[in-house]
């Protein structure tokens, strides 16, 4: 007897993890204690001294950054709640890094409205430029007072805590300013172009 397409069979006594909505969390999220590692490929291992990031303007002008240059910018301590589209959230995580706008201050961003973040290993994700400004996004290199580990995106990851966590690209090595929006790695598979957890923008459809 197949049960596909009909009412699913209930497993007696199975409740699964708690699904009670916590009003402090975005809809459909639950808190976890551990920091799960999500990966779509092998973990790149890049040492701080070898790390490089390139900022590219819509006109194609490129500005290279290295780790020493990054840490000469004003460093901030950040406490943030994280919301992963796979439905876990963590509250009060602590990071140290540089606001993204500090890297964009000198570049000619004429016509730029969106940014594609690029990572070692080929990952990409798109974010509106304005969401990376005004102290809402950072390039972070310490987590809980330790250098950021490779499995959580070290040496440097993007942190955009007001959007779903797939937007906070691990192992970031490029920020490309664009005049038009374009989908990144998960966005091209139906994940939302913007990804606001409070509006539960998981997918571009249903």
């Amino acid at each position: 007897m197949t049960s596909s397409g009909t009412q699913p069979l209930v497993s007696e006594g199975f409740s699964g993890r708690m699904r009670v909505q916590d009003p402090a969390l975005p809809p459909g999220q639950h808190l976890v204690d551990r920091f799960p590692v999500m990966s779509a490929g092998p973990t790149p291992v890049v040492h701080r001294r070898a790390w490089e990031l390139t900022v590219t303007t819509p006109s194609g002008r490129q500005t290279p950054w290295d780790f020493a240059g990054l840490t000469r910018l004003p460093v901030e301590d950040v406490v943030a709640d994280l919301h992963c589209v796979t439905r876990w959230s963590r509250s009060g995580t602590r990071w140290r890094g540089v606001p993204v706008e500090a890297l964009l201050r000198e570049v000619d961003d004429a016509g730029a409205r969106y940014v594609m973040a690029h990572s070692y290993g080929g990952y990409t994700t798109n974010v509106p430029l304005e969401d990376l400004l005004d102290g809402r996004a950072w390039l972070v290199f310490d987590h809980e007072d330790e250098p950021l580990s490779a499995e959580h995106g070290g040496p440097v990851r993007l942190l955009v805590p007001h959007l779903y966590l797939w937007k906070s690209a691990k192992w970031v090595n490029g920020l490309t300013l664009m005049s038009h929006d374009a989908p990144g790695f998960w966005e091209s598979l139906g994940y939302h172009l913007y990804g606001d957890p409070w509006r539960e923008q998981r997918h571009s459809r249903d």
Partner: protein
Amino acid sequence: MARAATLPRLTWQSATLTQVRRESSTASTLRLDVAGWPGHRAGQHVDVRLTAADGYTAVRPYSLASAAGSGLVEITVATTPGGEVSTYLVNDAVAGNHVEVRGPLGSWFVWDVSDPDPVQLVAGGSGVVPLMSMLRTHGSAGHPAPMRLLYSVSDPEQVLYADEVEQLAHAATVLHTRHSPPGTARPPGRVTPAEVEEHTLPATSRPSVFVCGPTGFVEAMLTVLTGLGHDPERIRAERYGERSSP
């Protein structure tokens, strides 16, 4: 018009638990009654789907432990920390409960009695489950070629199918990584390349090799086995993760 090859379609089947047996403090074997079960090959797995009363569902893959051709559908499940499916299946489920299964699945990590070659099995932890299906299939067929098991496990309490493994006598070697049983000379620790060489069929006998365990264990064993001269084409591996999804 050319007739297209007809592929067997896989769908969810309802299943009733008919027996739950403890294998260790953290693992149980569940026997399932699945109407119209087509039979399976040693090494295959099924996806198990659980549905809560409010419609919430969770799906996980579990290896079949029962022998091919036995007509039995048995999976062995080890709990993973915080694992909602494994915790239910090992600690809460009782005979008479219902689940859904999809399978049998996998046509690569399989061993059939038609393979005339010697077989070396290498298990890490609960990676022994699909290999036990191969051992049982091999045993019940009275297969003439040797089949040996090297089984790395954290401590004696975690050994699955302990009685059957003991009955394999010299065909099985159990090495402990964290605690050894009292009276054993070998201190607990990771399996070394020299131990792999000592306790497995030599590459010169050209065995089929099956390796199953956590990803790190499998990667290490593949390096050792190819270093001992085993043809990578004759080694099949199945990795299972320490699932990081909460």
